[in-house]
């Protein structure tokens, strides 16, 4: 993840506290997803940004997960994600999301 974004996220945790924050990812690439999820939970796996070795432990979800989709207004979801939902490998993303750090694999 871009070091500048890591810095912003660290600042947001300082400002708001980790308790109310949730990271919602939108990446379709599995490696990219894994890196982003790791960075905001257990620290930057590449050890290049300010989150290297910093365990923020933020909850991470993906916008394509059923549990997230159910909470979004259907019209908005269709407008913003509908087309991508048809073209991206949604099942693959959902499987990857189950393995985000902090998940127990059952959600």
């Amino acid at each position, binding site marked *: 993840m871009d070091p500048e974004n890591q810095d912003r996220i660290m600042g*947001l945790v300082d400002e708001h506290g980790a308790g109310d924050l949730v990271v919602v990812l*939108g*990446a*379709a690439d599995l490696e990219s997803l894994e890196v982003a999820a790791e960075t905001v939970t257990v620290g930057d796996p590449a050890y290049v940004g300010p989150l290297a070795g910093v365990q923020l432990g933020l909850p991470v979800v993906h916008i394509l997960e059923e549990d997230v989709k159910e909470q979004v207004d259907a019209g908005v979801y269709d407008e913003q994600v509908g087309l991508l939902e048809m073209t991206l490998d949604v099942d693959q993303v959902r499987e990857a999301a189950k393995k985000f750090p902090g998940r127990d694999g059952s959600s």
Partner: protein
Amino acid sequence: MKLDGKKVIALGERDGVSGPAIAACVQSAGADVVFVETECFV
């Protein structure tokens, strides 16, 4: 994970769902978006 009332960091990706698209979705779910970014993974 309930989004209503949460502060959301929307981290999209150029080749997937963009940050602004995520933000629009989670706002409709009652979340407060505090950061929006669309990364380009290389």
